[in-house]
C-alpha cells in the first residue's frame, strides 16, 4: 500500500530505473520482466544503462575481502547463558495493540467528523426556535398589555388573581424568550460544550413554556367557577378576562409544534455535551471529542514506535 503511494510520487524515469535495477537483480514478476525486456529491445540507451549497471555490480562483487583484525569470540568468564525468551513476546502483543488502536482511531475520527456536522444542525435548530419563542413572547406581552389597558375590565371585574396570572404568563414567556436569546448568542460564541448547553437551555424554555400552557388550560377550566363567584359578588360580566387568558393560552399553544423539533435538536446537543464533558480553556476549544481523537492519535504513535523498536529487537 505504502509502496503503491510512494510510486505515485515517482517520475516515469525513476520508475523505469527501478524496474531496470530490479531486472538486473532478477527481482521482477514475469509480466514486469517481459515489459522491461520489450523496453530494452526498443531503447539502445536503456541497454547501455543496463550494461553499465551490470559492470558496476561485477566490480562491487569483486571487492576484496578484508582480513579480520582479531577474533571476536566471547570470553566465557564474562558471558553466562543467553537470556531466556520471555513468555509473552512483546512484538506480537504490540503489533496487535497498534492495529486495534489504529482501527479505533479511524472510527473515532470518522465519528468526530459526523458528530461535528450533527451539532451544526442542532445549533441551527436551536437558533430558529429561540427566534420563534421570542416573537411569540412579544405578542403575548402585547396582548396582555392591551387587555390590561381596558378600563372596564380593570375597574369592574377585579379578578385580581386572574390578572396577575395573565401578567405572570406574559413575563414568563418574555423570560423564556430572553433565555432562548441568550442561548443563541452563547451558542454562536462557543463550540461543542456551549452548543450543548444552549440547546439544553432552549429545550428547558420549551418545556417550561408547555408547563405554562398547561397551567393556562387549568386556569381556563377553573375560570367559569371564578367568574360565577365574581359575578355573584360584583354583579359584573367577566368574559374579557376569560378572553385574555384564552389569548395567552392560544399563543402558547401555537408554540407547541415548533417546540417539538427543538426537543429533538436540543436532545442531540445535550447528548453531545454530556458525552464530551467539555473541559474549559485551551482543551475546551478543541472540543471534547476532538480531544479523544487527539489522545488516540498520540497513543497510536507511541504504540507504533514501541512496535518498531520491538521488531528491531527480534
Amino acid at each position: 500500500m505504502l509502496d503503491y503511494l510512494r510510486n505515485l510520487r515517482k517520475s516515469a524515469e525513476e520508475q523505469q530505473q527501478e524496474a531496470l535495477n530490479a531486472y538486473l537483480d532478477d527481482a521482477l514478476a514475469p509480466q514486469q520482466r517481459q515489459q522491461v525486456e520489450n523496453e530494452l529491445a526498443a531503447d539502445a540507451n536503456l541497454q547501455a544503462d543496463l550494461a553499465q549497471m551490470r559492470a558496476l555490480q561485477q566490480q562491487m562483487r569483486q571487492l576484496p575481502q578484508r582480513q579480520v583484525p582479531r577474533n571476536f569470540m566471547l570470553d566465557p568468564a564474562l558471558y553466562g547463558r543467553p537470556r531466556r525468551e520471555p513468555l509473552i513476546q512483546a512484538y506480537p502483543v504490540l503489533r496487535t495493540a497498534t492495529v486495534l488502536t489504529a482501527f479505533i482511531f479511524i472510527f473515532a475520527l470518522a465519528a468526530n467528523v459526523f458528530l461535528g456536522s450533527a451539532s451544526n444542525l442542532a445549533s441551527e435548530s436551536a437558533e430558529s426556535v429561540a427566534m420563534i419563542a421570542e416573537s411569540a413572547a412579544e405578542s403575548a406581552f402585547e396582548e396582555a398589555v392591551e387587555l390590561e389597558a381596558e378600563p372596564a375590565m380593570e375597574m369592574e371585574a377585579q379578578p385580581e388573581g386572574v390578572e396577575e396570572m395573565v401578567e405572570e404568563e406574559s413575563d414568563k414567556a418574555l423570560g423564556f424568550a430572553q433565555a432562548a436569546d441568550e442561548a443563541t448568542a452563547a451558542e454562536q460564541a462557543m463550540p461543542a460544550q456551549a452548543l450543548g448547553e444552549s440547546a439544553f437551555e432552549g429545550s428547558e424554555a420549551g418545556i417550561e413554556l408547555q408547563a405554562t400552557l398547561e397551567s393556562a388550560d387549568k386556569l381556563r377550566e377553573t375560570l367559569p367557577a371564578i367568574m360565577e363567584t365574581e359575578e355573584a359578588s360584583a354583579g359584573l360580566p367577566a368574559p374579557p378576562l376569560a378572553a385574555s387568558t384564552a389569548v395567552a393560552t392560544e399563543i402558547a399553544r401555537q408554540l407547541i409544534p415548533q417546540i417539538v423539533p427543538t426537543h429533538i435538536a436540543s436532545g442531540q446537543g445535550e447528548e453531545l455535551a454530556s458525552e464530551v464533558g467539555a473541559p474549559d480553556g485551551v482543551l475546551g476549544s478543541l472540543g471534547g471529542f476532538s480531544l479523544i481523537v487527539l489522545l488516540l492519535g498520540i497513543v497510536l504513535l507511541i504504540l507504533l514506535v514501541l512496535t518498531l523498536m520491538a521488531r528491531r529487537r527480534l
Partner: protein
Amino acid sequence: MDEQGLIQEAKNGDINSYNRLVLHYQGLVYNVTYRIMGEPQAAEDATQEAFISAYKALNRFRGGSFKSWLMRIATNACYDELRRRKRRPQSSLDELTEDNESSAFLHSPGEGPEGQQQQMELMRAIENCLQTLPDEQRVTAVLGDVEGYDYKEISDMTHVSLGTVKSRMSRARSKLRDCLQGYKELLPFSYRLMGSA
C-alpha cells in the same frame, strides 16, 4: 559444521559452541560492517557488538537462516554506531592513518603488478564512493551488490518493504555511477565508453 547443533548448545549456555559460530561468521560480519562503517575501528566495534547482542538474544532465534539473522543484528549494530557517531562527530589522525594502512589487508586477484595496482585503486574508488552514499542506501548497496543478498533478504535485514529496497538500490547505484565518473581513468574500458556516451 553442524550449525543447528551448535546453536542449540549455545542456547543452553555453552559459550564454546557459540564461539565456534563466531569463528565461522566473523569474517563475513566484519566485512559487511567495514563496508557500511568505512573505518576499521568502527567496523571492529560494530562486529563485536553484533556478536554480543546475538548471543544475548539467541533464544529469540526461531530457526531459518542463522546467517541472515546474524546479518540483521550486525546491520542494526552499524545503524546504532552510525547514529552515535552523528551525535558525536569524531575524526582523528589515527583513523586517517589506519585508512591508509588498510590497503595492506586487500587481497586482489593477481594480474601483474600494474594491473593489480589499478585494480586496487578502482576498489578503493568504489569504497570511497560507497561512503558518499546516505546510510540507508549504503547498507542496501553493500548487502545487495557486495554481499549478494536478494531483495527479500535485504528487506528482512533492514526492516523495510521490498519497494523501499528496490528504490534504495536504484538510487544507490545511480549515485555510485555518478561518483565513479570522477575516477574514469580507473574504470574498465567498456564502462568508460558507456559513461561518456
